[in-house]
């Protein structure tokens, strides 16, 4: 077409501001991350000193991973929903209900894999029901999942008469609590480094011609992968080995990151979250996308329910209480925007670990869980407030 011929018409675009690229360090660590990171480091150092050197031990790190795995898994799922502009308050109750399913199946003699798959299937069905009501009858997700929050826990408690189910077999407990042979840590570390090299190289070759700051992203990726590899080796080598919970964390985070970045569904997730009306006009089936999102969330809750059961050994009546709030807090601290359209799974994972660190550290110091909530609340509001403040300043151009 000869449209090309006119592409050089003098433009109506505003003059390009002559911006000097900021120093490398400032580009690598955005101010928001820098503040959170320094808070995190200070906290860790404080815990380390106050706990007489117990906080930074590979055993405690392994404990941290076991404690955080469930939150990371649920936060990953809920991040996808929040990016889509939706919301789910029922995740804690659904995780509880599915943990009952897994527990009952274990008691009935099913093997581990069937029990977990059974819990995930039930979770998927619950997600389908909630998603169906939300999309076909246009009931706000907030209302439907608030109903779910009450319903699934209520149903579960009625069904079991609030009795604990269990204990489950050691092989089920090993799902998250078992320790990998040391070689796993080495293989994992090698994989992390290889991935880091590959991803940073491909990023760089993609950007080097178009962007003056092409080096930033590769450096970040490489640094992160080295950090992960070092952590894996440290825990795997010095302690009693990496807990299997780490595998779930890695699996879910990698899977969901890949899904968001590369899949059609992931793309639609961002687009629907940015502006669902525009997405509809652009030919995206918004209702189906949201429905799939809720089915995904339910399935993830089924996995989380199984992991809770494995961690505790029995299914207790209060399993998964407040899980939805912790997961949402983790996602938001990790930079997932409640307005939709923005967020990453690795961010949500970092958020989950930050919260778990506070839990873990303060428990070591013997601080009551009531006081822990106060600290977590401050971190949450501080992190999000900081974000809003900087976004606003950027918009105002100050």
């Amino acid at each position, binding site marked *: *077409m*000869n*449209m*090309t011929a*006119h*592409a*050089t*018409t*003098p*433009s*109506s*675009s*505003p*003059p*390009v*501001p*002559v*911006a000097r690229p900021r120093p490398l360090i400032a580009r690598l660590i955005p101010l928001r991350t820098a503040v959170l990171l320094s808070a995190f480091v200070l906290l860790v150092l404080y815990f380390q000193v106050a706990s007489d050197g117990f906080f930074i031990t590979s055993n405690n790190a392994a404990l941290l991973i076991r404690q955080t795995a469930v939150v990371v898994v649920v936060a990953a799922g809920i991040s996808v929903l929040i990016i889509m502009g939706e919301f789910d308050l029922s995740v804690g109750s659904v995780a509880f209900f599915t943990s009952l399913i897994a527990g009952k199946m274990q008691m009935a003699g099913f093997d581990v894999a069937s029990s977990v798959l059974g819990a995930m299937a039930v979770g998927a069905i619950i997600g389908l029901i909630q998603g169906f009501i939300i999309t076909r009858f246009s009931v706000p997700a907030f209302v439907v999942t608030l109903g779910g929050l009450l319903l699934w826990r209520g149903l579960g408690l009625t069904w079991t008469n609030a009795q604990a189910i269990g204990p489950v077999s050691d092989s089920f407990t090993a799902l998250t609590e078992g320790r990998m042979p040391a070689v796993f840590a080495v293989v994992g570390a090698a994989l992390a480094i290889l991935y880091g090299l590959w991803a940073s190289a491909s990023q760089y070759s993609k950007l080097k011609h*178009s*962007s003056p700051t092409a080096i930033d992203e590769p450096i970040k990726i490489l640094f992160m992968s080295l950090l992960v590899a070092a952590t894996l080796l440290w825990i795997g080598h010095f302690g009693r080995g990496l807990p299997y919970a780490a595998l779930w964390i890695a699996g879910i985070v990698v899977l969901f990151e890949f899904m968001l970045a*590369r*899949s*059609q*569904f*992931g*793309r*639609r997730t*961002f*687009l629907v979250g*940015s*502006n669902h*009306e*525009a*997405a*509809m*006009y*652009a*030919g*995206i*089936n918004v209702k189906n996308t949201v429905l799939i999102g809720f089915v995904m969330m339910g399935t993830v809750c089924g996995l989380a329910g199984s992991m809770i059961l494995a961690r505790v050994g029995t299914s207790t009546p209060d399993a998964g209480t407040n899980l939805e709030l912790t997961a949402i807090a983790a996602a938001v601290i990790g930079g997932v925007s409640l307005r939709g*359209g*923005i967020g990453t799974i690795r961010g949500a994972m970092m958020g989950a670990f930050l919260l778990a660190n506070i839990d873990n550290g303060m428990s070591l110091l013997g601080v009551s869980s009531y006081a822990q909530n106060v600290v977590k609340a401050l971190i949450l509001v501080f992190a999000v407030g900081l974000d809003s403040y900087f976004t606003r300043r950027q918009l*105002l*151009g*100050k």
Partner: protein
Amino acid sequence: MMNSISSETTEIPNGTVTSALLEGRHLSKAYGSFRVLHGIDLSLKRGEVLAVVGENGAGKSTLMKILSGVIPSGSYEGDLIVEGEAAKFSSVQEGDAAGIVLVPQELHVIPHLSIAENMFAGHLPGRYALYDEAKTVRWAEEALGLFQMNVNPRARASTLSPSERRLIVLAAALHRSARLLILDEPTAALTDTESEVLLKQLHFIRNQGVGIIYITHRLDEIGKVADRVLVLRNGTLVASFGSVPPREQMVQAMLGDAFHSLKALADDAPFAPSGSPLLQVKALSVYADTAQTRTRAKDINLEIYPGEILGLYGLVGAGRTELARALFGVWPGPVTGQCFIDGREGIANSAQQAMGMGLSLLVEDRKSQGVLQGQSVAWNMTVAMLKSMTRFGVLVDQGKEREKVADLIRKLGVRPARSEVSINALSGGNQQKVLLGRCLFDGLKVLILDEPTLGVDIGARAEIYRLVRGIARDLRIAVLFISSDVDEVRTECDRIVVMYKSRLQTSFPRGATTEQLLSAATGAAN
């Protein structure tokens, strides 16, 4: 013809010197390292109407924000002098108290509050801690009396037409003894008739000794209302006209070098239809309710041939957008009749279906229905063609996507020519080009453009016309060009049909006169 600016004081006959109502000296403003205003001088006398024109991004809004106190004193450079005294407004409220009232382009009229409450929101009279409703209504009656507006101040604001909404804001400002009114695109959302009413009232306001600064894209209005004209380009004052010059001169000043390329837009040979029509609509009716009593479009018949641009002209509310939405499958109410796309019959039930049939719609409301805020130019472009770039059925083929986006950016002349920047960083005209690119998926047969140049400045407008022409002629696409701008319909379309009260009127060839189209659009032809 282009005078230099002098910050002036006016000699009046008896020899005393009165200072200007408002004077700005060397007003400059920068956001970070990005300078948006470069030392603007201006002055305005009582009872004078000063038009300020310029493309989007020329600095008009920034200048008005400085004058009205939205940008507080101290965060810009230069001096502001109101009737001889230095003014340092630290907020809009202070500007308002000094009698300088900014009426923004998008009015924030709250539909379920009363007209009186809307008029004096922010200045509600109180009695002790309570709000004095009787007094508010009395004020409103006085103010509305100024314009001889016959509305009940206690009625809800939702009962007002768009022009009446603007008038009540003006009336309220006058009632608070405004000395200077700054009107930002006051007629942008109005029909031609409504604009006439507003312009007439502006004469009345001016005669009361109030100064008016009038910002507009509609150059034809300036001759009707303004005494003097200032032209801004890229934050600089490039021309000051002591009287209203011919349209040509204003456009030249606004565009600078870009002017000559606009002039190069010559009419090509008249269009000769060939082959069978790509879009054929037979006895199509669109209703707003299931009982089919509230009609939005009635018995519509039209056909568009490959490569043809059919203009659909009509005033706001004639049913044009409803027709477009019905064809595109996104109208919520019942639709009856037949629609053939390239010979295949069917009325779409959803946007996906419509696109599957080869139909595409460039939406009227760019901000809420078009732009995917915060996402990149690339993602905004490829959203409608993701299905054609899959790998293994579930993944996005990124290589294919990059190629497609680079190709579209080049062909459409999107600036900046970068696929990864957020679409929010683009000007309105460039956003529109991105959205136009979104419509160009493989298998496109019929392209519906609903007000494609709304809120787009003149330079980008010319580019969009050329792109549309290129799409129609070179890709042999049928284009339905919906617009309420008579001039663009007259010059940019091969054939024009006019819609009035849900029905299509006579069709006109290219070059029909404004009078012909207007009389058809207002029902006079019947």
